[in-house]
């Protein structure tokens, strides 16, 4: 058999190569890409590029084209390019999105503007310092089961179904970016933010978890700062109903813990779950 038989892997060339043909996916059009460039202490502004359009290309494809064909030091974060890792968060035409899932043919015709996330400190170009999210996560006590709860566990699917939504989070931090408590009021030091309310909700609602994080969420977590404007829900690429299914249930639990007289009496009589992070 001939060694040079056609390879399925060797089919259409990648975007930006060669002439526009049906196989290459090149449409023959170009896209004007305006990308924020610069770093603190240096020059900052927008660079404009004319990028050959490929069928159904996403913003990250265009940024990669720029890196390969002119501006090799243009910085952006990305990993999977499949909407699963949550690395390539940015603001496209002012909207917080994942660049790998934002198809250019779904945007209005005209220049496409790409900026870094506004609520995090800029490092360079499209990359921001998101390390404070990882610090916040350390403040939330991890999943804890009763040590004598023997394996294998029996849990009903219906008890897990509502947790799946929370567990879909890919930590893109777009919700942290868009939330006005961070974005406009700069309260991130006193506010866990939507991502970590989702995380806390997934722990609090786990049928096998024995901790009580309500005081922590109220005090260090700043849960009360959220006034349920639902901006976080709107930008979530995983379509998690952050406000309705994580934050509001947590607010209700905190209210139960502190303001419900019946619960107060019940607690006096039978004690409460192991509590963490009290005031």
């Amino acid at each position: 058999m001939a060694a040079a038989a056609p390879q399925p892997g060797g089919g259409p060339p990648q975007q930006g190569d060669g002439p526009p043909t049906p196989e290459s996916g090149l449409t023959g059009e170009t896209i004007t890409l305006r990308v924020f460039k610069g770093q603190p202490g240096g020059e900052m502004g927008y660079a404009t590029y004319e990028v050959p359009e490929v069928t159904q290309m996403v913003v990250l494809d265009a940024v990669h084209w720029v890196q390969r064909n002119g501006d090799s030091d243009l910085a952006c974060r990305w990993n999977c390019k499949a909407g699963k890792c949550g690395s390539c968060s940015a603001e496209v035409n002012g909207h917080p999105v994942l660049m790998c899932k934002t198809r250019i043919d779904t945007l209005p015709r005209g220049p496409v503007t790409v900026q870094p996330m506004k609520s995090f400190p800029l490092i360079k170009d499209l990359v921001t310092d998101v390390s404070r999210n990882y610090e916040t996560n350390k403040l939330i006590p991890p999943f804890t089961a009763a040590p004598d709860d023997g394996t294998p566990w029996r849990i009903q699917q219906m008890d897990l179904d509502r947790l799946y939504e929370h567990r879909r989070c890919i930590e893109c931090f777009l919700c942290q970016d868009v939330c006005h408590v961070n974005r406009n009021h700069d309260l991130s030091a006193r506010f866990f933010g939507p991502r970590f309310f989702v995380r806390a909700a997934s722990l609090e609602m786990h049928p096998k978890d024995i901790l009580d994080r309500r005081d922590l969420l109220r005090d260090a977590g700043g849960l009360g700062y959220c006034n349920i404007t639902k901006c976080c829900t709107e930008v979530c690429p995983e379509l998690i109903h952050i406000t309705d299914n994580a934050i509001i249930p947590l607010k209700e639990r905190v209210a139960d813990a502190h303001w419900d007289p019946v619960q107060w009496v019940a607690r006096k009589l039978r004690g409460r779950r192991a509590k963490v992070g009290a005031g």
Partner: protein
Amino acid sequence: MSESYQTRECDVLVVGAGGAGLRAAIAAAEAGCSTLVVSKSLLGKAHTVMAEGGIAAGLANLDTPDSWEVHFADTMLGGQLINNWRMVDLYSREVIDRVYELERWGGLFDRTDDGLIMQRAFGAHSWKRLCHVGDRTGLELIRTLQDRMVHTAGTDVLMECTLTRLLTHGDRVCGAFGYLRNSGELIVIRAGAVVMASGGWGRMFRYTSNSWEGTGDGAAMAYEAGAELQDMEFVQFHPTGMIWPPGARGILVTEAVRGEGGILRNSEGERFMERYDPVKKDLSSRDVVARSIYKEVVAGRGSPHGGAFLDIASRRSAADIRRRLPSMCDQFEALAGVDISKEPMEVGPTIHYTMGGIRVDAETAASTVPGLYAAGEAAAGLHGANRLGGNSLGDILVFGRRAGEAAADAAKGRGAKPAVSKKQLADAEAAVLLPLAHDLGEKAENSYILHRALQEAMQDDAGIGRSEESLNRALTAIGELTERSKRMRAGGGRVLNPGWHTCHDVSSMLTISEAIVRCAIARRESRGSQWRFDFPDRDAHLGQINLVARKRGGAMKVEERALALMPDEVVTRLARSRFFDPVALPSHYAGKVAAPSSEAH
């Protein structure tokens, strides 16, 4: 050193923050060692997050004939019996505990009606065996381990740091050298032991499901430090990657689509897997399915963009599809505008996984270099010539833990960290800074262009089907690119400069590509993922050896290592697989297996 650099010290250095690295770090820290995890990306973004189908473990929650023995047999047969049988033995026993452990650490799994962990069918597994949560098991696994690790005392994480060299003292690995991606600062990490959990490599191929990180730095570093790289010729094509639109080409379409009942059709509407594998059909092993799609395309029965149709829409209800395959629905809707609950997907083979890697001891995950351990995709041995779906998430848990524990044992007895010679540091620094420093004018090479050229060579000449002629072409190309790579020049500064970062990636990929091609040339047979047009059959001698690539006198040499053969009692276990075929048993095992047991039917 000509300039200042950061220094860090720890008992155990874990390179990589995917599942294997995180599990190793937890084990090392729990053993009382200060443990530093170094990650090229942000925490939680490692390639583990992409795993979709599940973790294979013989829990027998649905199919009662299943057991760790059947899992052992399936894995050995899937790997065409050149796996390290002792690794498979440990793996199939211990993965059960690791699944339950993950659950106790907060990981979610879908449930059976009885409330037990749900399991799904997968390619070449005898029974329903994959513990999963929808089609996002990897995300669940990495988030659970990530959270466990950051809350384990004694662990620390260094994110967005690329390591370029292992440092040695005498013949022993004693740390690593690299740079912080965000600042460009250089860093020296001194450690009592190093666990290489740096994952696999797919980026030297043009169409791959791997993220940018899959450049093989870890294996390349280990090779430079003297470690043996084993089974490098075995690179897994996942049969189903997206092939359209062009920007999405290579992105994985989970095997769970077929596990949940999806079937492959050619342009004539024929369910062609019935022809290639009448028993396992669409759930045949990945090497077989990938080759079958290839053959259909070559025969002119491919889909419009050179692949096959994957149809789940006609096999399950739309609601079922949305519930069981949520991220596939989302992926096709967002990237291709295809509703998979209504229309078929267009799919084709994509480079997905590397069976080869650092040669390790089964029990301890120790490499052939003292002080260096390896686990997960970076290591070789468990999967042989072809990995079964669901065995990678199990691999990283079982051998991540074993590597972490063994590295901790080794580090604990070592006391003060030895000083690293100035020459080693100066060499490492010079190499990493060279692309920013030298002025070559017209002769300077662009790292992106070299990367693309390497991808062309590997995809076309060392891809799914190979011959001596094509492999030699690839080898020549790699040689030329290696020469050109010495003249790579990156513009811009050291702060977050992807052009500069790509220079090191290209160097690693060239080393690894050379190992893949040299081993593929030496294995003059077809076995598992290695398909040689010029040697279409299996070879008896090659069935009793592994090939290793190692550095001798500055050049790469390929050598044979005899397989440890299974004892008779273990060979007998093979008959427990539903797919056991006594006729296919190689001569060195012939006559050692009784007729298949009744469970096989």
